[in-house]
């Protein structure tokens, strides 16, 4: 008779072990509970995303590192307030990063933005946005395709607003177009992407 637990028979004991990495939400829960292991895993999982967004937005690696560090610190402080119904962990954390970067950029925005900075950031978006193997992407590839399908002027306006926090008035100044045109470009691009996302669901 086979020993208990040998489900395959044949006298060979087989143990199936499923090794799963904790979900993003589980890591945040661990973070909220003050679990050091969860904190380390959380930073390890998201550091390239957070730093990548920060350096894309501010350009300066040293400043980006400070902002990324502050983003993780804030996430740790406020992990207890994370609500999965409001969005994914990655977008929550990246929103914190974006707000910090925008604060930094706005404080320095006494001079018009160097047009090359936008161009470089936009090129970087297409060149290096490889998915993180640790976290399967959900719809990001499709979103990138939708972005790429936008007319250049609409895509630029949207990215200036979404990634760099420029208001419509500032987008107008950078692009040297009337305020109404800047608003229309941002609005049209947003609605096109939103409709494309709806179509994929």
């Amino acid at each position, binding site marked *: 008779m086979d020993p208990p637990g040998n489900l395959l028979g044949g006298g060979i004991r087989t143990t199936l072990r499923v090794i799963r990495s904790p979900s993003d939400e589980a890591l945040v829960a661990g973070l909220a509970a003050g679990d050091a292991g969860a904190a380390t895993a959380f930073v390890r999982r998201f550091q390239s995303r957070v730093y*990548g967004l920060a350096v*894309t937005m501010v350009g300066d690696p040293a400043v980006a590192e400070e902002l990324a560090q502050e983003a993780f610190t804030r996430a740790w*402080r406020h992990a207890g307030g994370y609500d999965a119904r409001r969005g994914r962990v990655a977008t929550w954390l990246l929103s*914190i990063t974006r707000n910090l970067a925008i604060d930094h950029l706005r404080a320095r925005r006494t001079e018009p933005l160097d047009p090359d900075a936008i161009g470089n950031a936009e090129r970087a978006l297409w060149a290096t*946005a490889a998915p993180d193997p640790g976290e399967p992407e959900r719809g990001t590839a499709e979103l990138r395709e939708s972005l790429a399908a936008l007319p250049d002027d609409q895509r630029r306006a949207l990215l200036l607003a979404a990634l760099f926090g420029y208001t419509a008035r500032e987008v107008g100044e950078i692009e040297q177009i009337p305020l109404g045109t800047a608003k229309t470009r941002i609005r049209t691009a947003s609605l096109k992407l939103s409709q494309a*996302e709806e179509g994929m669901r």
Partner: protein
Amino acid sequence: MSAGDHERFRELAPELALGIADGEERAWALEHLADCRECRVRFERLATLADELLLVAPTAEPPAGFEARVGEAIGTSSRSPGRPWWRRLALPAAALAAAVCAAGAVWLALGDDRELADSYRETLAVANGEYFDAAPVELPGGERVGYVYGYQGRASWVLAVIYDGLPDGRYRLELVTGDGRRMPLRSIEVADGRGSTGAVTPVGYEELTGVRVLDRAGREVAESDLHDPD
């Protein structure tokens, strides 16, 4: 609510979702959202899209040692939300009294710590609240220009007072929550270096982490960190 309101909201919604609508537009749009389910559904889709756009940003490995530095920062920081109420009694007595007066609730007589604590508890019981708080408003260089007083209760509120150090003019106040949301509060008019404003907050005070003071161009000129360690 008219058809024109919906149309106006539809035009504003993308900018609102991207967080770039100006203060007055944002205040109007949020008010509209509160009463319009149809627009709320539309807005939620756009807000999700705005968040998802951040995911297309390129990834990049931070410099060596980053993980350790974050760990060190976390290990040495204090987790501020949820501080027990009695720690908040360390508020300056004058600031606490000002907050209570502003609420029009009670006058809190200055006395020794025990009397203060008793009065404090009674005040909270009357107002069905959990705690009062106060935090300085500071310029980027650390110079103190005023205070924010806050109340956590069934209706939470904040009162911002500027007493010195800001040029005269109109400023916008913005609430910041722990999960990164930003919500406009009322504007504040500073004349002869002084000004004040207050309002019920759309979320519980304990969810707030800061109040930002913005100039007309939307630049932050001062900030109050509501969860600085006591």
